[in-house]
């Protein structure tokens, strides 16, 4: 195998360009053998090296007083006081989920969980962001079913509650669905573990499942545009084993209580290769590994296969010399393999042996950190101007607003996601204080009074129409959701899903969107502490809408002061924080009712945003606000409707009078940003108004809670029950259940 001649074709089939291969030759001063070529190919794949995206990721604000670990480790960490750190990260598993939705999504969850517990943290919550094509297509229904079952299958078995997420449906995803999974964990800050292979002579220990021929070249696959023949790549799909991962989690947490572990990293994409190289690179060391000792599931595996396998549920750990046996003992208790497969060396080389021969000998640094970096050409698409043009005069105002509202509630993107989160165990660990179905989920931190709010957000249609504004809005909306639940926004993880970076138009989207994210994160003081990039989300040349998903975590000092989105009591005063503008570009209304994805997305004024958020948060913390719900897809009318029926087993109506100074469809369904609908009791109204004025947030009293109908001016008049029916049945009906 090592004798295979390295021809042009072999190089090309490893996804390396001619220039990249030239660089390989320079680094080595010789030709690589096949094992070495395979290692280069995965380490330098887009997925592992970030070669197209790195120049832009540098723009993210990544520090704050409370940030303990920013980007660069397996996951970022923030400090919430009392010695507790919160570890979180989001990652994509898009391509595998398209090929095999159940296993693809399941192993996506498994992967992100390992990123969190490899830091020494116990995972306490999962979230996800999902995107599919239209549910009218059987294939998309199949994908949705499989992905949701896969996420549920893995997360439920692990006993980690899946507390939130988002789901969008748009034709642009029909050939490239998105499955982004996020995990949040808790750690004692003096017990954070990192991916470091330090200490010359220290043993390198392989723990977890045996290695099979799974997913070889998975990392390369995730970095290649789908072609016609991609179905052929099927056998590279990995099968997840959440049971083994649960054992791995408990065993790792047990080992972390000792002082045996020097460094640890999960074997994710590119398995043994990336974990060993990255750990050695961070520590500036080398490793000598003997592959014969790697636990194997199949016979006759070659060094190439062992190094590139993406078998799941494995970790690589560097231990203090002399503790090997004790470590093995702990893993044995959990029925897991733990085997010393190598030693840390001082010469900066990765030396890999098998059957008594050296099968690869590569310098660590150039491979791990020396991947070619691209500042790829950037060009604003020709079509962008036309796309952003929307002449409101050509958009006819509807005759029947009730009908429009019902249609919007029935749009799967807006409709209830209960069919989905009902399949996720969202209560296990008995911490979930705000369950899925409100804005951000809230979990308590046992042993303290604190709580964490968390959410994922991105409206990719906005990003398509104007990636800069869209990127900003993703952050602002996430923060708004956190605030509506009573949390103070703390930090961000992102998952940047885009098309083919070799196209200047896609790279422009990437550049603009990341600049937008950076701007909003700086202004809202929510640094980016980690994330993931997924490129090449294209099928036959058609790219997805740019989708920079934002995952955000917020802090509640007192979890008792959490808030939910739905109306509470008869007679409460309904207040709108923020301003209604005449903005219908990029709205769900325009799409569902007028079949257009056009115009400028809503504008975002970050100063106004901050004012609205600050006043809402203060109102919640002071115990004045009884419900808070932000306006997003479907605008004010949809938000108000949702406030009427999202409480479990409790419907309540409202009478609303809005000042009409803009088009009525924009007033009801426009998606102006920086708006939150809150309720307070009559007696608290003045005090809350005072807070809002202090924060310079525009406040308008727009109505009262009560009755069994929602009425808005003389435009909307609907029984709550009828609205709820449309909203709650939209997805199950399309799935035929």
């Amino acid at each position, binding site marked *: 195998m090592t004798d295979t001649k390295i021809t042009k074709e072999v190089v090309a089939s490893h996804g390396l360009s001619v220039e990249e291969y030239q660089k390989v030759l320079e680094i080595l001063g010789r030709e690589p053998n096949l094992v070495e070529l395979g290692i280069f190919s995965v380490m330098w794949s887009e997925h592992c090296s970030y070669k197209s995206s790195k120049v832009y990721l540098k723009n993210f604000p990544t520090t704050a007083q409370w940030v303990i670990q920013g980007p660069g480790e397996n996951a970022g960490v923030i400090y919430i006081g009392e010695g507790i750190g919160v570890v979180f990260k989001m990652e994509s598993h898009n391509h595998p989920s398209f*090929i*095999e939705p*159940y*296993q693809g999504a399941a192993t996506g969850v498994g992967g992100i969980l390992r990123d969190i517990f490899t830091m020494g943290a116990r995972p306490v919550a999962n979230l996800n962001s999902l995107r599919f094509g239209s549910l009218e297509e059987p294939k998309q229904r199949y994908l949705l079913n499989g992905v949701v079952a896969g996420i549920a299958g893995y997360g439920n078995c692990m006993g980690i509650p899946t507390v939130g997420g988002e789901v969008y449906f748009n034709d642009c995803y029909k050939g490239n669905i998105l499955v982004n999974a996020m995990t949040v964990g808790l750690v004692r800050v003096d017990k954070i573990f990192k991916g470091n292979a330090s200490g010359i002579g220290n043993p390198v220990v392989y723990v977890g*499942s045996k290695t*099979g*021929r*799974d997913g070889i070249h998975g990392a390369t696959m995730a970095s290649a545009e789908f072609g016609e023949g991609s179905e052929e790549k*099927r*056998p590279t*799909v*990995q*099968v*997840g*084993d959440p*049971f*083994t991962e649960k054992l791995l989690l408990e065993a790792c947490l047990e080992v972390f209580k000792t002082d045996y572990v020097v460094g640890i990293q999960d074997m994710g994409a590119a398995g043994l290769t990336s974990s060993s190289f990255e750990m050695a690179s961070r520590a500036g060391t080398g490793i000598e590994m003997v592959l014969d000792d790697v636990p194997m*599931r*199949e016979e006759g595996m070659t060094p190439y296969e062992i190094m590139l396998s993406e*078998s*799941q549920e494995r970790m690589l750990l560097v231990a203090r010399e002399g503790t090997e046996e004790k470590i093995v003992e702990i893993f044995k208790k959990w*029925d897991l393999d733990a085997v010393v497969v190598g030693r840390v060396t001082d010469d900066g080389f990765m030396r890999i042996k098998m059957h008594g021969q050296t099968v690869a000998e590569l310098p660590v640094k150039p491979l791990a950190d020396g991947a070619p970096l691209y500042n790829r050409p950037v060009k604003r698409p020709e079509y962008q101007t036309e796309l952003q043009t929307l002449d409101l005069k050509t958009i006819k105002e509807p005759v029947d607003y009730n009908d429009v509202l019902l249609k919007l509630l029935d749009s799967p993107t807006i409709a209830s996601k209960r069919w989905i989160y009902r399949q996720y165990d969202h209560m296990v660990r008995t911490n979930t204080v705000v369950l899925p179905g409100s804005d951000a989920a809230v979990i308590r931190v046992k042993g303290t009074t604190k709580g964490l709010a968390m959410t994922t957000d991105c409206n990719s249609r906005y990003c398509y129409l104007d990636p800069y504004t869209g990127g900003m809005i993703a952050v602002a909306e996430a923060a708004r959701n956190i605030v509506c639940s009573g949390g103070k926004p703390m930090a961000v993880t992102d998952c940047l899903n885009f098309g083919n970076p070799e196209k200047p138009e896609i790279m422009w989207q990437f550049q603009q969107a990341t600049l937008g994210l950076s701007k909003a994160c700086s202004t809202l003081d929510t640094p980016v502490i980690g994330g993931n990039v997924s490129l090449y989300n294209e099928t036959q040349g058609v790219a997805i809408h740019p989708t920079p998903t934002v995952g955000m975590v917020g802090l509640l000092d007192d979890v008792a002061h959490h808030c939910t989105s739905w109306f509470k009591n008869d007679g409460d005063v309904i207040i709108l924080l923020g301003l209604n503008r005449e903005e219908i570009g990029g709205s769900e209304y325009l799409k569902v009712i007028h079949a257009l994805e056009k115009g400028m997305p809503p504008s975002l004024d970050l100063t106004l945003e901050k004012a609205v958020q600050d006043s809402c948060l203060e109102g919640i913390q002071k115990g004045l606000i009884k419900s808070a719900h932000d306006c997003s897809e479907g605008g004010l009318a949809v938000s108000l409707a949702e406030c009427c029926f999202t409480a479990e087993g409790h419907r309540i109506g409202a009478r609303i009078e809005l000042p009409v100074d803009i088009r009525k469809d924009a007033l009801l369904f426009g998606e102006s940003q920086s708006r939150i609908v809150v309720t307070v009791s009559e007696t608290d109204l003045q005090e809350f108004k005072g807070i809002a004025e202090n924060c310079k947030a525009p406040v308008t009293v727009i109505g009262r809670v009560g009755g069994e109908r929602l009425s808005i001016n003389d435009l909307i008049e609907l029984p709550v029950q009828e609205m709820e029916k449309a909203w709650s049945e939209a997805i199950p009906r399309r799935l035929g259940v």
Partner: protein
Amino acid sequence: MIAKVYVTLKKGVLDPQGKAVQHSLESIGYKEAEDVRIGKFIEIKLADIPKPDAEKKVKEMCEKLLANTVIENYRFEIL
């Protein structure tokens, strides 16, 4: 007419379920069970149609629904 369909995991695909069962058998004393793979056994009652048609239909059913051909193989017999 009955179709009996056997769906098995492809070679090399991890079978967590089989692994757990083998482990359990071993721990309760059945050391002779060296490997276990778990698949599906599906019985379909078919309307009376000519056998060649049945073969064709069942094959299609397997491809489309009964087996996940990304990771599974299938075979069937018609009685």
